């Protein structure tokens, strides 16, 4: 459902030129749970941002459901992000002026959804991550694991086709990390949500269907995770 063709991302400043991505070709299929691994600075986040239409590549094409997005306007891209994609960030990025449930409603805010419907769907999403008891709290009243669950609920609320998660467990201890991973696995298996996850944790990566390894802006391996490996 997301197709990357010859993607190149070069950061240029006056003095230096950094190649973050170098001719990446990648196809994400519906229903997959893909993990991306690689050393720090190899371009994983850059790749995820380009997939999520948050960033533009300096070369190559991104296509969503076969449609190239290169010529899309700002508002058209916003609409695509809103309807098809849910983001989960390493540092949660909740809006601290809003309550948990208002945070989760965010993707629905940019759609034509009535306030009561918004609330209903946000509460459903919170239920899926097991946070029904914390809807009126503010983000700073929650633990890191709880915040990340709110962030996942927010990504779910819009019912996206794909969730892009950049080190979702990076800031959490292993127990909370496991919890988050379980939620993602369940989403993928029970609801068929496509997930692309960047991680530094080999064990987590091995729980996914497909593991892509990156080095210096290039894929160096792309393999199906075989049950036996677990």
């Amino acid at each position: 459902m997301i197709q990357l063709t010859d993607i190149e991302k070069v950061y240029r400043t006056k003095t230096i030129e950094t190649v973050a991505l170098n001719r990446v070709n990648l196809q994400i299929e519906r229903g997959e749970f893909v993990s991306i691994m690689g050393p720090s600075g190899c371009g994983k986040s850059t790749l995820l941002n380009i997939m999520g239409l948050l960033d533009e590549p300096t070369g190559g094409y991104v296509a969503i459901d076969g449609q190239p997005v290169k010529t899309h306007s700002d508002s058209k891209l916003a609409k695509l992000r809103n309807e098809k994609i849910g983001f989960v960030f390493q540092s949660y990025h909740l809006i601290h002026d809003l309550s948990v449930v208002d945070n989760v409603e965010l993707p629905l805010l940019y759609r034509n959804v009535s306030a009561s419907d918004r609330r209903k769907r946000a509460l459903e999403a919170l239920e899926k991550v097991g946070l029904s008891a914390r809807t009126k709290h503010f983000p700073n009243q929650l633990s890191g694991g709880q915040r990340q669950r709110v962030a996942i609920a927010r990504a779910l609320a819009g019912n996206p086709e794909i969730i892009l998660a950049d080190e979702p467990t990076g800031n959490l201890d292993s127990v909370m990390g496991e919890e988050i991973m379980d939620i993602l696995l369940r989403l993928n298996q029970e609801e068929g949500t496509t997930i692309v996850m960047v991680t530094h944790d080999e064990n987590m990566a091995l729980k996914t269907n497909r593991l892509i390894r990156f080095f210096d802006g290039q894929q160096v391996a792309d393999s199906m995770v075989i049950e036996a490996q677990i």
Partner: protein
Amino acid sequence: MLKNYIKIAWAVLQRRKFFTFISLFGISFTLMVLMVVTSLYDHAFGPQMPERESDKLLFVNNMREQFKEGYTNSSPPSYYFLNRFVRPLKTPENVSINSIFMPVNSYVNNKKLTLDQKHTDAAFWDILEFNFVEGRPFSAQEVNNASRVAVINQNTRKNYFGDKEAIGQTIEVDQVKYKVVGVVEDVPVLRLHSYADVWVPITLKSQDFKRTGLKGTYFATIKAKKASDVPKIKDEFASMMLQVNKNSKPEGVQEVFSFADDIFGTFARSLMGGGKTDKSGLLYGILAFAAFLFMLLPTINLVNINISRIMERSSEIGVRKAFGASSATIIGQFIVENIFLTLLGGMLGFLISAGVLEMINDSGILAYVNLGLNLRVFAWGLLLCLIFGLVSGVYPAFKMSRLNAVEALKGGSK
């Protein structure tokens, strides 16, 4: 959508108490000062009782003599000058001559009252629109006969007679007994051409009439037939002054100056000094510029606050973009927030203005002043604030909305 914008605006305002306080204070304080100043302006120069037809009224309150040695000397004009040269002017509908008000003592039940007394002719009551609460003004005949009659204001009536009958009673002012013929509503002291506590016939001061100098202790109040006659009256006044300069200059004086101005004009002239030209335009210009500067400061303050406020929220902008807000939506959100803040400040400013005006009224700093909120000025002030709010919100919002989502997300991690 709008409800949500306001919700987040409210949340942001509550969370960022210091910023909120500074912005709200800036807006409401500015509005308050604007309101109080314009209210005072209206009070001093606008059409108010008793100078209600202010566009038809002109005042002569100054006589400036420039001596050959170079120095100048100014004071109110004399009765002689006003009676001899101003009263016969042809363009006006009516001319009144009246003394400046003088504080005089009077005793009531052994209590000393200091009253401001003014001597006037009968035309004074025709030209000006006093609100008579009881009785009547004194007539031309009473003036001619130098009758000892007086019109007093409500405050004096209260101090002197309390709840008892006032009309027909005598009051003793400056050791002279007068019969009260009328009681008028209190006139604010800022209306210094009309204000007094006690008004008595000008003929009771006839000893002043014989002096032939140009300087004295009198004013003239001129009423035009219609507002468009005012320039003609000024012209006639100027050519009359040419004659005075030619024929009636005192010894040693090089030139004498006197003008018929409207209320604001008399004020402008006395504030901005000599010369022959009307200073109203210049003073208006200075005042408008001062008001502009005064409004500019909170605007700059607001722009600054907004920029840092919005910068601080770059991560929020990134998140909103990631979840489907377009740049236009983001700009909309910040503009709504800003307008909401401005309106809140405006409302607060309105309440504070009302309170401050009430305080000035009660404090007695200005005698008999009754300042009110000028709604027209408030509307303008609020509109200005809104425009400023828009301008101060649009620029930073626009800047931030252009921010690449990835950069914005990096901007602040929470």
